[in-house]
Every structure is written in structure tokens, then in C-alpha cells.
């Protein structure tokens, strides 16, 4: 575990750069983390992040498929917002843990 400063706030992050405490997350922090990933956040990015944060708060698991059914973006659109590995990027920027997989 290490400490990083985003938007002037000192945060605990794990070795892969994911925030430990999701309640410390703010939109400003998201913007700063996104800059590291060369992503400039717009309203659609934030709508997807809010959707993911709600799911996690409800104890639900995250899948790319679920985002495709969210009504915010389709899966191709999700890839366009967070290129390469959208779920990993969106959770990191959204202050959420890296999604657990099937193991």
C-alpha cells in the first residue's frame, strides 16, 4: 500500500493504483487519476462512474455486459470512453476496487 496525492488530497492506494477507501472519492480526484491514464473526463464518463459506484454500493458485481445494458452507453461506447480495458480503468478512476473475477 502506498500514498498518492490527487487533487491535493493524500490517499491510500494499492500496488495497482486503486483507491482503498471509496468514500474519499471526489470528481476532482477522478479527474486527476484520469489524467494519469490520458483520459479527459466528460459527463458521460461521470454517468458511467456513478452507475458503477451505485452497483458496488449495492453489493453487486461489475461486468462490462451490465454497463452495456445500463442505458448510458453500449459496450462499444464504454470502450471508447475508457480505451483498452474499460472496466479496470473506470473502476480505478471511480475510486472503486479492481473488479473481482471468477476466481
Amino acid at each position: 500500500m502506498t500514498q498518492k496525492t490527487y487533487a491535493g488530497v493524500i490517499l491510500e492506494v494499492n500496488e495497482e493504483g486503486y483507491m482503498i477507501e471509496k468514500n474519499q472519492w471526489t470528481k476532482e480526484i477522478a479527474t486527476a487519476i484520469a489524467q494519469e491514464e490520458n483520459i479527459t473526463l466528460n459527463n458521460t464518463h461521470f454517468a458511467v462512474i456513478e452507475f458503477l459506484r451505485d452497483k458496488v454500493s449495492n453489493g453487486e458485481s461489475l461486468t462490462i455486459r451490465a454497463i452495456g445494458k445500463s442505458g448510458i452507453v453500449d459496450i462499444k461506447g464504454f470502450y471508447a470512453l475508457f480505451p483498452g480495458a474499460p472496466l479496470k480503468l473506470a473502476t480505478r478512476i471511480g475510486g472503486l476496487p479492481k473488479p473481482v473475477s471468477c476466481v
Partner: protein
Amino acid sequence: MKKIIIVGAGTAGTMMANKLRKSLSKNEWEITILDKYKTHYYQPGFLFIPFGTYTQKDVTKQKDTFISKDVNLIYAEVERIDAAQNKVLLTNGDVYNYDFLVIATGCQTRPEETPGLKESNWYKNIFDFYTIEGAVALHEFFKNWQGGRLVMSITEIPYKCPVAPLEFVFLADAYFTKRGIRDKVEIIYTTPLAGAFTKPKCTTVLGKLLSEKNIKINPDFYIESVDSVNNIIHSYDGNEVAYDCLIVVPVNMGDEVIARSGLGDDLNYVPTDKNTLRSVAFENIFVLGDASNIPASKAGSVAHFASETLIGNMLDAINGQPLSHSFDGHANCYIETGFGKASLIDFNYETEPLPGKYPIPGVGPFSLLGNTWINHLGKLAFKTMYWEFLLKDRKLPVSNKMSMTGKNKD
């Protein structure tokens, strides 16, 4: 007379029926298990069918062989579970009431979820090996195949038996080597994961094996569609991989009855407390095996270890007590690596697969994350263990809780 209904007589449902019957008085509790099919498949054996190691006969038995005669076994399809009314409605119009319900409806492959997959070349040069039909069709195809590009592709997470596609490519490497045409077969592995597996130490070991066997991995590849006319798979981010023979792990989803009953998430898995194994929504519903959404492998070993927790908690619930048993997510998988060797992993919710010895610390005989002949014998012997011990609820010499003893952290 009080009633327990188990929906689904696969690995999880069968084990649970036998455990409950042993634990509850026949004068007080009636136990009914429902399933639409009479055949019980040894699903881990499907992997060996394409390579001719097992035949259909080796993996097929009748369900009633394994279920206590004091359990009502009914072959019928469930139309809907009415959880608010504690009723199970069958398609034939029959209605069963219950005091407690166990959902053990598993998960199934849904090739139709991926556009282009299940079209005219399905079972011609596109196969799955998660169904008996797919495994047998692939065996017939491989017998006459003279080589080309073989692509093993995982479409969606989670899927049954997370190591099976890796085992598949390891076994394919050995199979085509033995046939003398390995130099004519290019093997490519595509996965939506970032590497060969999800946990770091295991990914390193398996990634190294892939590279040693000249199997190329294409990570972070999430399939959008299959172009089965031009033999190309397309990913959502615009990449493509051409194939001559495509082997897929189709999208896995929970049973349709879960969707019809309004009990599932977007993949029809039942939201379940990962420790108590009770349904999040209904206090008298418990979920065992692949049907649940717990963050553990969808595998028989998980259902087996979880069943030990579940029986305790169901007895607590029946006695009106708080649920006192907690499942740790324990999973245990042999990984066939080809040429008569296998690896073995043992892990849970918190602990990733680590090297060491199993089940006796320091002794084994099995080597965790090793690649040995003894592990391979363990995998082969497991078929008998499954039919004769696990399903019939005879005691196996392993603990249901994962142990750190015998594991090396560094």
C-alpha cells in the same frame, strides 16, 4: 410434514439432497429434488473427450444412481419459483410448497449471446467443449484436422471451471505433438482478462507454461462478434484475430428459470451472501453451486466445499438459530498441462493460489503450483472420487476450509 425442495439435481443439488437426508428425520422432513434431465454428466471429463482420452460413456450416468432413495426425485421442468408464496410451479401444472428451498440450477453456455457464433459453421469449424455435443463434435473434427490456426477464446467472465480453457490449449499442444503435426498448428489464446489467470502468482506460472509450449496469449480481448464466413473474431475495441478452428467458452448464464422467477442479476445469477450462502432476498432460500453470484470459481470443488457450510447453516435455520457457519470461498483445481503432468491450485476469497504441498502440509503427495505426474494421477483419480464419494456424500480426506499450512507465501 415439513418440506425442503431442491431445484436442480446436478453436482450441487445431488450433494445437498444426500446431506440433508442424512441430517433430518424422515418423519419430520420431506425432501424433494427436481430436475428436467435424467443424465448426470461428469463435466470435468468433457475436457478430455476432444482428445480421445475419454468417451461419452466415461462421463455419463443416471441421476437416480446418486440420490438417496429416501429423497423424492422428480423429473420435471420448473416453470417458476414463487418465492413470496413459498411455491415451486412446474410446467406440467403441478405446484409444490416448501418451507426451505435450495436453488442449485447451475449455469449454462449461451453461444447465441455472441453475434455470429452459433450460425452455419457451429460444430463445423467452431466448437465449445462445455457440452457433451460440443466435446464429441470436436473430437470428430480433430481426428481429421491437418492443422492451421487454432484459437481458444473466452467470451465472458465468469464461466465454469476457470482453468479449463488453459488446460484445453495445453492438451491440444500435447495432442498435436503426438500426432506429429504440432509445427502445422498455431495455437492462440484470447481472454478478456489481463493475463492467463486473475491472481498474480498463478498467472506467472501459467503464463510461463503457455510461452514454453509456444501458445500465444492475446489478453484484454473482449469478443464483440464472430464473422464465421471469413473466420475472424472481432473485439469491442476494434482488434481482430483470424482462425481456422475456433474453440470458444461461450457466455455463461444462470438458468432461465431464475430469470422467469425474477430472482437473478443481469446474468441470471442469484444474489447470495458469500459467507452464509443464503439468498439476499429471501430468508428461507439457500443457493449452492454455479447458480449463485458469490465471487468464487464456478466449479464442482467450490460447490463441494460450500455444501459443508450450507448444511450447517440450513440446520441452524431449521432450528431457528442464527446462521453460524461461514464459507471462505475455498476452491481447489487440478490443471492438466499435457504430456502426463498436471498442476494444482488451492485458494479462497482472500488467498491467491500459492506454491506448497497438498493435502498434507510438507508431504503432499500433490504439489501446489508445481507441474508433476502425481498431480496428473490425482486429476484422473478424481473421476472415481466424484462418482463414488463426492456425490454420495461419503467423507473425502480433505478439509472444506482452505488451510495456510503447507503453503509458501514467498
